[in-house]
């Protein structure tokens, strides 16, 4: 090998090593924590690929096949790159409907009326005639007085049969009234208010029970995005008024429901990170969330009272709101205490199911929650239903 050739090979090696290092640096820097860092990492990978291809072509052995087809190869690689980028762009623009993660949480197959559909006012809601309500698609009996139960997937009864849910069991005990389960998976406090406002005029409510899930109602109420890759309404209290302040709904829904990103929405953590990274959605600070929730509780109570109903808030905990062995979770991450305080400060009628649940033997308590420590099993629903029926009777909510 001639000296010149050796120099050329060495140069090629240096260039390819440099490109490989850059590629590794880019791959290692891929993160969903910061948009600028993500873009820098992607740009590094692209530059590394172009660099390595350019070096390989420019330093190809003279007279060889690569050297003689340099421009054709460059054109081919360029075309492939451009086609890939175009394909990614188009895939990001093709709308495929709600993400798989959203459907897993909210989709009920084989139903004539859709239990979930995107809804510009509420984010998502059951669709159908006004007489059909909640994700369980209960049909309103206009001849009866109603007990309305409204919550999220906890009271909807995710992963249990309808006949096993607390609202259904309560309906069997409170037979003078029709118990309507208005619950919809994924809802947070402003959605309780919005959906109640929509449904209440079609009912004769005697009692409205709002299930406040302490596991995520606080966090989600202050956001315009969900861990399921779907936008949701975001309100803020401004000058005494509740003002809708969404700014990134189109981005969140467009992205999460696109052909390109839909598969990425399969896990909640990634959905959250991508929503935050690419759409920079609005999120309220802690003090604003507290003020908003306090105001929403008051609005819900006013709505119910205006319709002639008693309004009772039911605190529904996850299994470990109180965990002696996890003080940080108990004192700082759990929202049970702050939601309870907001309800008490607002002088709202409140039923706290957590002490009641904790009074059950540990084995029974463990069996009351599903493996996510949030949703009730059939036996958990039974405990909650029995307790709520007892409280309704003792406090005379239906008298």
């Amino acid at each position, binding site marked *: 090998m001639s000296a010149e050739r050796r120099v050329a090979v060495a140069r090629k090696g240096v260039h390819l090593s440099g490109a490989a290092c850059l590629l590794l640096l880019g791959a290692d820097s891929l993160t969903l924590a910061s948009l600028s860092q993500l873009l820098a990492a992607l*740009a590094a990978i692209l530059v590394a690929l172009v*660099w390595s291809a350019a070096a390989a072509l420019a330093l190809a052995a*003279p007279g060889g096949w690569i050297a003689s087809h340099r421009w054709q190869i460059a054109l081919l690689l360029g075309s492939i790159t451009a086609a890939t980028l175009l394909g990614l762009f188009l895939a990001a623009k093709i709308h495929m409907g709600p993400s798989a993660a959203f459907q897993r949480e909210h989709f009920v197959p084989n139903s004539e009326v859709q239990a979930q559909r995107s809804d510009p006012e509420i984010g998502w809601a059951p669709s159908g005639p006004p007489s059909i309500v909640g994700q369980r698609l209960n049909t309103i009996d206009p001849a009866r007085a109603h007990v309305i139960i409204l919550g999220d997937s906890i009271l909807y009864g995710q992963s249990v049969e309808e006949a096993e849910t607390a609202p259904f069991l309560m309906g069997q005990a409170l037979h003078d009234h029709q118990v309507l389960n208005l619950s919809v998976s994924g809802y947070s406090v402003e959605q309780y208010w919005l959906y109640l406002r929509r449904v209440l005029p079609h009912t004769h409510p005697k009692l409205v029970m709002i299930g406040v899930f302490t596991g995520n109602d606080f966090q989600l109420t202050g956001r315009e995005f969900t861990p399921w890759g779907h936008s949701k309404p975001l309100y803020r209290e401004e000058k005494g008024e509740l003002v809708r302040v969404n700014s990134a709904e189109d981005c969140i829904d467009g992205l999460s429901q696109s052909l390109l990103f839909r598969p990425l929405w399969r896990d909640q*953590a990634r959905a959250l990170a991508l929503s935050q990274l690419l759409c920079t959605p609005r999120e309220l600070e802690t003090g604003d969330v507290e003020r908003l929730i306090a105001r929403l509780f008051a609005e819900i109570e006013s709505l119910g009272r205006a319709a002639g109903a008693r309004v009772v808030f039911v605190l529904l905990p996850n299994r470990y709101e109180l965990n002696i062995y996890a*003080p940080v979770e*108990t004192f700082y991450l759990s929202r049970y205490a702050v939601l309870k305080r907001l309800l008490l400060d607002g002088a709202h009628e409140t039923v706290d199911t957590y002490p009641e649940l904790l009074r059950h033997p540990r084995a029974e308590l463990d069996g009351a929650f599903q493996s996510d420590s949030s949703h009730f099993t059939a036996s958990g629903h039974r405990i909650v239903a029995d307790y709520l029926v007892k409280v309704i009777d003792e406090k005379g909510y239906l008298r």
Partner: protein
Amino acid sequence: MRPVRPPSPPAACFAAVSLLVALALTAGCADPDPTTPVDATTLARLTSEGEAGLRALGKGRFEVVEYRAEETKRVDFADPFAFHTRLVALVFRARLRFLTRLHVPTQSDLDARIGAAGWTIEESYDGLTLHEVLGEGAHEAGSEASIQAAAMFVDLRPGLRFERIDHVR
């Protein structure tokens, strides 16, 4: 034979690499946390509220003989929903004198109490707080203990609200 022409290097590549490295480096540092500054006035308020919080915790159990604020530091906890609980911890040293015999139960004792007759959630919160601040064990009436602990204030942005007395996290 045509001489091998070294590719003009890629000054552009080097420039790009430098730029990217700079970008990558700055991206990691350029995400400032919009924190509420703890100015002298606020610090005085936190110090006062922290002492009041410690005295409230000790009511009927211990009195605060000495109390000295040392520093503030920021603490940030994130939950599985990536929701952040941002706190300001006012670290203090204090000397306590126990008014009566105080036995701080072990964690397993505290855990075993949950759900028992007469138990309340507030009782567990109180017991766990004492455990975090004093540690388990007995303190005789009249005895003294020196502790380092923290008054935790939740950052409402704007504003700080006293939450609890805790050990230094």
